[in-house]
């Protein structure tokens, strides 16, 4: 009887530990899978990809917004900082960064920019970098992660122009 109770107690303790590890691992696993797929589409890391407008056949990310066009960049700042540049439209636009645990650690939108262009230098915590004048320095809490440019498409008539504009966005090692 005592042996059975000990077995049950040990099993429950072990299952609690596995439960906690699983919960903590899920965001990393989901991000890893998303980053693998996105970097494959872009032809590598620190390169932009320009996914088509989301439709019912899109399986890139869950709950995609059909009213946005995206530019995605899987970054790796392990060896070098990465520079993000692009032109900014009238209307909602944002550039957001997600660490390898899925946290959105930085975002900037068109209202916070002084001009119609963006220039962000992303570096790791241990890199000593000097941003260009007018360039925003952002420190990534993880070496790898994802940056997303979001372009709002307010209607079918605006889609083509917004698609052209998003192709002016990019990321590359600095």
């Amino acid at each position, binding site marked *: 009887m005592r042996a059975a109770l000990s*077995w049950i107690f*040990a*099993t*429950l303790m*072990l*299952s*609690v*530990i*596995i*439960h*906690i*590890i*699983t*919960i*903590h691992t*899920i*965001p990393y696993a*989901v*991000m890893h899978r*998303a980053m693998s797929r996105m970097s494959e589409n872009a032809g590598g890391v620190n390169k932009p990809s320009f996914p088509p407008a*989301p*439709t*019912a*056949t*899109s*399986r890139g*990310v*869950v*709950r*995609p*917004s*059909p*009213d946005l066009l995206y530019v995605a960049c899987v970054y790796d700042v392990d060896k070098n900082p990465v520079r993000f540049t692009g032109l900014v439209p009238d*209307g*909602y636009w*944002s550039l*957001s960064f*997600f660490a390898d*645990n*899925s*946290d*959105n*650690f930085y*975002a900037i*939108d068109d*209202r916070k920019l002084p001009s119609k262009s963006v220039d962000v230098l992303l570096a790791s915590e241990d890199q000593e970098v000097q941003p260009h004048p007018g360039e925003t320095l952002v420190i990534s*809490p993880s070496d790898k992660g*994802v940056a*997303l440019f979001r372009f*709002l498409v*307010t*209607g079918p008539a605006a889609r083509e122009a917004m698609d052209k504009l998003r192709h002016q966005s990019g990321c590359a090692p600095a």
Partner: protein
Amino acid sequence: MLLVALALGVGSAIWVTQRGINVSIVRVGPWQSELASGSEKADPYTRAVVALNGLFALTPAQSLYFTATMDSGGKPLMVNCTYKLTGRDLPARWWSVTAYGPDNYLIPNSQERYSVAKTGLLREADGSFNISVSPDAGAGNWIPTGMPADSQTFILMIRLYNPEEALVKNPQDATLPAITLESCS
């Protein structure tokens, strides 16, 4: 012992994330929002739920998300039913309502229409709006829910980009559209 512990540990983690159980949910009628979405302050459960159901979600200061899986009467949203969303413009620079299947992807429909947004929305004389959510084409604002034969549930999501500061501070006070069940086929 290890196999049993694995089954219990992983199984309970999946159950919790699928149920969306966490401590940072705000409910407004049939709508609910994960306030810690995307935040570095998110608890592990919220982070896991958001990674599975809303990867790349922005923080509330940038964008607020409300989802509904039930109508205002508390019944699950079904693709073979017709619903009417009634409300007024939402306090954000731009907003939209989108329908997703239970797999969290956009619902196939012949018109490739997936959302209704602030821009392009038809409004009544008093500024209010009605949005039909149904498998059949409706006059005016309409979000398709696919084919009735599918007979499955769906999800509605409101996105609010650049929400007003008062809404970010007190999302529980938001006035969101009512979801009224009209009929089922």
